[in-house]
């Protein structure tokens, strides 16, 4: 067991003292949200009971209380949903002019904007993320994603020079629990814009905003069967992947499951796109704007409790500024509030599930056993619910498991480097290739480093920025295919 290390200043008498006589009172979000006690499966424009009559609970990870229960879709339900999607495709959606399809998608965007506050609250309750993030990031980006793709529906002739784009048909879409509504938007919007119909399965720990989205889709009067949303766990997902009448599978989740899907689809003609895990390197050069880089580190690994595939979970700091950066980082971390997701002042909410918290804690043990130095902030955390104090592992090395494996929590493994070549080598020395960060005030260095990093999304002097116009996706084992932007249309069309 190694000792914790505090890098803050050689002059202990010049420490910034953060625990103050003035602390923030609780500031709970006061708006109301309506969560039904039970949600059925959304198939063919209606909510229908699951064939086997089984339901499973979804709980609030902040207090472990049950929020609602949702239907468990069996193979029979999956089949029903795919049939509805196929029928809607053949009879209605593939025949509809692009501009009318677009207007449906605009409606979804507008209704999401109208219901934004309620959706944010439910997202925070179901998944654990702070209301500040669901309100200011997740929900607005979801609406914006629909807005963006709505406009492509009648403009596909301009997207692929020399080619006519045709929809693939029926898409099966499986999304994770870290950005439930946003991931649903990332999947549904481009699929609809390009003329496909779909069956979407949200993650089993976070189904509620998907069911609210089903209500939005029903209220937008989308033709029945164009969008079907069915809840369930691994078995439901497998049934969807293996269904013979699906033309395309889109999956976001762990690399392990992604590989299983790729294997399962190998003997078929189905198209697929995968957005998998990552272990991004966030590189801080000595000529970075240091205070803003520190904020970038915070945004990189503590945004959404670190439950982000593109999180800056490895920090590479140029040795000449190591002490300065770590000292400032620790100071900044002390002001992070870990607490009730529905409190507007909460920076880091609840870990999504008990299983995930156990995984994270396991890595905290592993890292210490391996010889890295663990440091966590001193903040209070609630006594019930699943919470984790933000953590640094100092003196991590390239061979440590905490440096190689995705932890998916508020934990960053820190190493030093001396030259740009070394930073690039360390950054690329991983099977993953989703994202990366580069911090330097020197323009030419930015472009040099970003051309060398093998990742699909590189943030220079910023981190964890998302926009519907900006393509997102990975190299190597982080997946294939892009979501967002013009390039995000390609996974849903065939080009003739």
């Amino acid at each position, binding site marked *: 067991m190694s000792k914790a290390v505090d890098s803050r200043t050689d002059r202990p008498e010049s420490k910034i003292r953060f625990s103050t006589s003035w602390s923030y009172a609780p500031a709970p979000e006061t708006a109301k949200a309506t969560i039904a006690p039970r949600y059925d499966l959304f198939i063919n424009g209606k909510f229908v009971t699951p064939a086997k009559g089984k339901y499973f609970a979804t709980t609030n990870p902040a207090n472990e209380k049950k929020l609602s229960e949702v239907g468990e879709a069996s193979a029979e339900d999956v089949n029903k949903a795919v049939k509805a999607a196929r029928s809607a495709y053949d009879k209605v959606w593939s025949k509809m002019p692009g*501009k009318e399809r*677009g*207007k449906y998608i*605009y409606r979804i965007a507008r209704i999401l904007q109208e219901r934004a506050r309620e959706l944010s609250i439910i997202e925070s309750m179901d998944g654990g993320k702070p209301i500040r993030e669901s309100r200011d990031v997740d929900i607005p980006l979801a609406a*914006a994603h629909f*807005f*963006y793709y*709505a*406009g*492509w*529906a*009648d*403009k596909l002739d*301009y*997207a692929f020079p020399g080619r006519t784009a045709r929809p693939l048909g029926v898409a099966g879409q499986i999304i994770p629990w870290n950005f439930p509504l946003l991931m649903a938007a990332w999947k549904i919007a481009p699929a609809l814009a390009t003329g496909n119909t779909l069956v979407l399965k949200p993650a089993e720990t976070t189904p509620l905003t998907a069911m609210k989205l089903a209500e939005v889709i029903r209220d937008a009067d989308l033709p029945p069967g164009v969008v079907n949303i069915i809840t369930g766990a691994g078995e439901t997902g497998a049934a969807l992947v293996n269904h013979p009448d699906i033309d395309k599978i889109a999956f976001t989740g762990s690399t392990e499951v992604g590989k299983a899907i790729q294997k399962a689809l190998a003997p078929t003609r189905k198209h697929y796109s995968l957005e998998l895990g990552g272990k991004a390197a966030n590189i801080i050069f000595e000529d970075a704007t240091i205070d803003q880089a520190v904020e970038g580190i915070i945004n990189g690994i503590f945004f959404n409790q670190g439950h982000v595939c593109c999180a800056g979970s490895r920090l590479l700091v140029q040795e000449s500024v190591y002490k300065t950066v770590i000292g400032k980082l620790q100071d900044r971390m002390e002001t992070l509030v870990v607490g009730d997701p529905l409190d507007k002042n909460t920076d880091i909410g609840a870990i999504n599930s008990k299983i995930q918290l156990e995984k994270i804690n396991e890595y905290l043990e592993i890292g210490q056993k391996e010889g890295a130095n663990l440091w966590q902030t001193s903040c209070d955390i609630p006594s019930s619910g699943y919470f984790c104090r933000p953590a640094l592992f100092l003196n991590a090395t390239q061979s440590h498991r905490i440096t190689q494996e995705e932890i998916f929590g508020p934990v960053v493994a820190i190493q030093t480097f001396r030259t*740009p070549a070394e930073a690039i080598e360390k950054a690329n020395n991983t099977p993953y290739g989703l994202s990366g960060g580069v911090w330097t005030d*020197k*323009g*030419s*260095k930015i*472009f*040099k*480093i970003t*051309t060398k990093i093998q990742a699909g999304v590189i943030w220079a002097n910023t981190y964890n920025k998302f926009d*519907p*116009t900006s393509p997102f996706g990975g190299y190597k084992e982080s997946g294939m295919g892009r979501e967002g*932007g*013009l390039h995000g249309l390609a996974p849903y069309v065939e080009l003739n």
Partner: protein
Amino acid sequence: MANGKVQRNGNNGHATTVKKSRLAPIDSVETSTRLPVLKTYKIYIGGKFPRTESGRFYLLNNRKTGQPIANMCLCSRKDFREAVVAARAAQSGWAERSAYNRCQILYRIAEMLEGRAAQFVSEMVQMGFSEASAHAEVETSIDRLVYYAGWADKYQQVFSSVNPVASSHFNFSVLEPSGVAAIVTPQDSALIGLISTVIPAITGGNTVIALASRDLTLCAVTLSEVLATSDLPGGVINILTGEKSELIEHFASHMDVNTIVYCGNDEAERATVRSKSAANVKRAICYDRTDWMSPEAQNPYLILDTQEVKTTWHPIGV
């Protein structure tokens, strides 16, 4: 319901009693004894509704029956001058808005127009269109607004480029708006012509001074009311009504206008536009299209026409 109103004929100053038709939905009850409040048609500059500074007017008639409809402002070159000032003041702010924001505002204009579709149809009927063609034109106009709303955050992706130069430089070309555009809109169109020429220019971040159709003016003026309620910042679109022959020289020669768009088929006018533009190397765009209802009248190249290309170089190296 017809109502008498005394007004001067614009040309000879004689007072005549003219039957002025009330602008009411077609199915209004003829037997009502309530006196309607008649609308005054003003111009739209800087987000406000002034009258023409010249105090002049012309009489708009139904182009089929010749029946008088209402007095329109007969704009002067000074109105145009003020409109250019307003458009210039609004341009950098409009261009700096995010594409997403411009997209939402354009979509909002469509929402507002959809909500007032009946009024536009009724005005077109008053001006001599059939109800069927009026409906078609209003619906096409709304859909065209939605069309361009969808281009606002995409044309950059389609028309920009990263250029693979031979030296170690990151080199990229982006589109930027030319600035202020003066547009002589299709004179033979009540609504779709104006929409089709003005909207692509503002989609790309330009601000516009538009001259409405002289003889089919009502919808242009009512459209300015729609614009004013759509979160569109004042000055982004300015709408003047009046005589093309009086104003075209000023549209083309104004030194603080970056682009002039001329819609029409008069060779002499085209020549004037082209030669006067040379004074400040104004971009002169002439569209001779007559059918603005056609689907070919909407495409992203109309946006490209009012864009400049900026290429930037930066070294790549540590």
